[in-house]
């Protein structure tokens, strides 16, 4: 049996498992699937949390498990790996497009590490609705740990920004 075919199938199944907080992104888009290991009738999926305390993690682990069991895999193990630590650079290009279409500004590329300096602003974050760069930070923390809250000065809409990490 060619394990690469099974891995491809598992990957395809994982494309259907979405982040419960950001339902437009699959766990593949999010870049949190670190490893898929298959043997005759078992599959091991290693995933990495976005944030240490992300409350969605347990739900994601359960969804991954249930999806693979439903597809007929008998022996499914889902485990977490902390290192290397997740970065927003692992979000796929397709994922970034989906975020923008959903109204969330995707993370800027190449800023995987935050500055510790106070009042250090990131490069201008473009509004996901009207593309204006005239935006302002409202709060460093948004509705989930991975997002910050911005407002567009051009169209006045508030929006979430998937913050650098």
């Amino acid at each position, binding site marked *: 049996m060619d394990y690469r075919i099974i891995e491809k199938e598992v990957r395809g199944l994982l494309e259907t498992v979405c982040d419960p907080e950001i339902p437009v992104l699959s766990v593949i888009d999010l870049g949190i699937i670190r490893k898929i290991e298959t043997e005759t009738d078992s599959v091991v999926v290693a995933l990495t949390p976005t944030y240490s*305390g992300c409350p969605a993690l347990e739900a994601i682990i359960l969804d991954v498990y249930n999806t693979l069991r439903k597809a007929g895999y008998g022996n499914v193990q889902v485990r977490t790996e902390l290192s290397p630590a997740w970065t927003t650079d692992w979000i796929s290009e397709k994922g970034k497009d989906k975020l923008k279409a959903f109204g969330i500004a995707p993370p800027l590329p190449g800023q995987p590490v935050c500055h510790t300096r106070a009042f250090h602003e990131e490069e201008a974050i473009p509004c996901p609705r009207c593309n204006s760069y005239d935006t302002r930070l409202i709060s460093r923390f948004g509705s989930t740990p991975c997002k910050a809250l911005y407002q567009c000065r051009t169209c006045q809409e508030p929006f979430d920004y998937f913050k650098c990490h």
Partner: protein
Amino acid sequence: MRRDQHIHYLLHLADDSLILGHRNSEWTGHGPILEQDIALSNISLDLIGQARNLYQYAARLVNRERGMKEKVLPGVKVSGEVSEDTLAYFRDSRDYKNCLLVEQPNGDWGKTVLRQFLFSAFQFLLYDRLKQRDDQQVAAIAEKSIKEVAYHLRWSSEWVIRLGDGTAESHRRMRHALEDLWLFTGELFVAAPYEQELLAEGYGADLSSCRLPWEDTILETLARAGLFPPEDGTSNGSAHTGSAIMTRSRAGGKEGQHTEHLGYLLAEMQFLQRAYPGCEW
């Protein structure tokens, strides 16, 4: 390396994060504005998540060796294997190894953000050292957590500056908060016996190397906030530590000698599991 010292050290790291996370979570639903309520709740999530990772690791080490539970957790009266929940909910104040700073009551918003700032500036330096160490599990947790801590540090620095350099009232409150909390910062840099022993074997972080960079961070932000560390009443510690701002300090938390505040915190945090052990919902 002695396994029991190793476990004590992991519990110390985890307790710092859990207790500060719990303290911050007391603001959930009570923040001055919604965005900042969410901010502090998110910081709590990060800290409690870090604590969980460390407790899970500590629990695995406890369960791996026969007799280890009795040795490192003599007060825990729960039968069976130890879990992260056992470590969080069934240890008493004397078993907790967090530093005194993180258990101090929230006070007003200014005191809460100052406590976060003083601790995050330290935790950032600590994790920066731990992520390069040989213990792969601790290194992985530190590597993961330091990105979160960087964000906590930046957020809390901004609040310290905003309030210190704000109105006369906010400045006055920050000055009082600094006087209250300053006494507890010295402990961050004093190694407990288990830390000294581990460090002698090349394990853990050299806390004395964190002190000066910590002071640089703190003094720079405080200066921008128009605040100064309280006058040092004894000042005889500075000569041999090289510290510019050595102060009288209170310590003991890392060895289980806590201020009275921790008992009240644990009573609230642990009540449900003590009343209904193993309860899930």
